[in-house]
């Protein structure tokens, strides 16, 4: 159905990050918000993405924010970096979604909501590392990957799943010995993202916990956040609820804290 070669082929085709983006990122890394905003202005697609993002309801601004330096100011260094990474992930997203019932808008809101809630979690955990902040941006890439790899095989997948409850990630692992998250890591390498992002993403699958305690803790929160988000009606309807296997034991010790933080009633 899907072979290792096909995955390699897919990874080959991922374009490197555009120059302007890399420049913006490195300036953001140095904390140069204004200079970064100037460079970002030159990339029109990025500009419109950022505008769209900040004006999503979850940010709660009354009037429209349009100026890039203003946007970077609002988001702060880590928030801006996260937004740019989100944009890069977004570059991979297909024009037309076939496997999952998503579109540009719903995918953007998935990114925005994950980012915002992740920020809330990190605040609670008292973690301010901006690379950790950005780690969440790569998670939606796994969804794009499933879409890209499986969309032509949807009938096969459906048949297979009518006989056995197997998620996309497990199918890939059994067929190619590679998980969706491994491919995400390949992408992150190609985009020269910090190593810690890849490590957290890998552990967040819940299947391969990291040896590093701190990374594991973050991965648990990320795993649960992902499932919280994918239980929202829009994403359930999009068919995302069962795209990877939820590891309930992996997150059992943080559930209480999580539900308090997200105000989940009992």
């Amino acid at each position, binding site marked *: 159905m899907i072979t290792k070669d096909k995955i390699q082929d897919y990874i080959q085709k991922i374009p490197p990050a555009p120059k302007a983006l890399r420049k913006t990122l490195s300036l953001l890394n140095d904390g140069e918000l204004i200079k970064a905003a100037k460079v970002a202005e030159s990339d029109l697609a990025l500009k419109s993405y950022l505008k769209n993002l900040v004006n999503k309801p979850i940010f709660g601004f009354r009037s429209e924010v349009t100026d890039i330096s203003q946007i970077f100011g609002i988001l702060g260094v880590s928030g801006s970096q996260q937004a740019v990474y989100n944009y890069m992930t977004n570059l991979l997203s297909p024009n037309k979604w076939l496997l999952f019932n998503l579109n540009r808008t719903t995918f953007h809101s998935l990114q925005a909501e994950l980012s915002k809630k992740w920020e809330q979690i990190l605040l609670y955990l008292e973690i301010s590392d901006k690379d950790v902040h950005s780690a969440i941006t790569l998670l939606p890439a796994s969804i794009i990957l499933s879409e890209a790899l499986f969309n032509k095989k949807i*009938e*096969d997948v459906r*048949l297979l799943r009518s*006989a056995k409850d197997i998620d996309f990630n497990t*199918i890939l692992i059994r067929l190619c010995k590679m998980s969706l998250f491994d491919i995400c890591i390949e992408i992150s390498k190609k985009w020269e993202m910090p190593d810690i992002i890849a490590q957290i993403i890998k552990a967040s699958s819940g299947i391969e916990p990291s040896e590093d305690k701190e990374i594991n803790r973050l991965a648990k929160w990320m795993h649960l956040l992902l*499932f919280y988000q994918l*239980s929202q*009606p*829009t994403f*359930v309807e999009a068919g995302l609820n069962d795209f990877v296997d939820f590891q309930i034991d992996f997150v059992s010790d943080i559930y209480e804290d999580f539900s308090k933080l997200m105000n989940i009633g009992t």
Partner: protein
Amino acid sequence: MRAVVKNGIAIFSPQGFLDGDSTSAFLSIEDINATEQLKVDMVLVSLKKVVFFNRNGLDVFVKLFSKVRQANHATVGFCDYDSKKYTAIIKFYKDDLNFSLFITAKAAHLFSSSFKNESKNVLLYSNDKSQRSAMAIELHDNGHNPVIAQSEEEFIEKSKNEQAYDIILTNTFLGQMGQKIATRVTGNAIIYSIAAFLDADIGNKFNIAYHNNSLNVGFRLFIFDAYKVISMNIHALNFFSRLASSAAEYNATICFVGMTFEKTPKNFQDIMEDSGIMFFDHMDDILQNKELLKELGASSAAVGKFKRQIKKETVVELPRFINAAVATIEMMTNSKAIKEAATIDEISITNKTDKIASSIGFYGDLDGMVILVFPTKIAKKTCELLIGEKTDNNELVLDSLAELVNIIGGKLKSLLADDNLSVDITLPRTYSSVDNLLEITTGRRGVQVDLAFNNDKFLFFLTR
């Protein structure tokens, strides 16, 4: 979302958080309709991967339960929960708990007609006395050995000795149980469960098309599990006599197990025996008696009386059939198939060692039977995707092979539906050796296509 159906049990497995909003997204109207159409005897919702739920979240499923039960009398309920979730559900529905709760899916199997007579040792406890007895009766009826703990202390004490029991059952609740003629396959015998009063209605409840096609596919032993039958009248008697004479044409045997004639005229038994029906007191009298099983044809099917010829309409569809089979196997093994030869004749298998086979019948606008003969090696490979690991357990391989053929059957069905041809598929039958297969195919002509997967020979045979 759709349920995964296996062994007559449909299981939904939602993940994450279930509240009123999200659950209605989980179950669309089409999903509910599709579930009602399923021919299953249990519909379960697994809460294994649910972190959070509230009453609104469960309500949508509970509504589905009542619809399904109305439509086909299946047993319905939740399974796979911990004691916290169990307490919550009991609290939510304390007065109108009309569905069942099974602590695990495995525990639910005990109550399903698909897993009867496995003689599991079950330790059970419920603080509700009537539940305790209801469970014990059901378990006993299904051929298991229940041990009831009368108090919580006794339960804790007894459950310390884990090895003594196959399953420890607690936090389980039996709502209304379903009643219908269920079908299941043990070895290569088909078992139907019948219960209560048998009258003219049996003709409506019994899936005769399914039965006839099972005959055609090569099933030769049909057992009616009649432990729960109270009595039967003359209409039911006629029905079974006719069934027996049609079975005789295929050299098939029909058996009744556990039937008592307390409230049924004794001469009914004579009439039924005259028409060829055999009576046994216990299921194990047949299933544990290998020689009898062989004699009755469960492990080796006798040659059918009718040599049906394959029809032109079916041959026209042949490329599609092959494509469906090949595409599915390619998908499962990740290898490419090459077509080597196609002939119309009786099946010919050159090298018979290390091969297993499987067949599935289809009926409706078109009818016929697809037979696949695999080298054991390929079969194991295709099963890896389903099981997730390498295995040398032959039964497990045959079991997943049956699933694979089922997937192929499903694919065929959807391909034919594209052409507005509507067919249903029978249960898959497996053969642990080529000789077993040849016993039913001898004398049948059909289309044989030889295929090769990375030099492993593989055979596709289409007949009627």
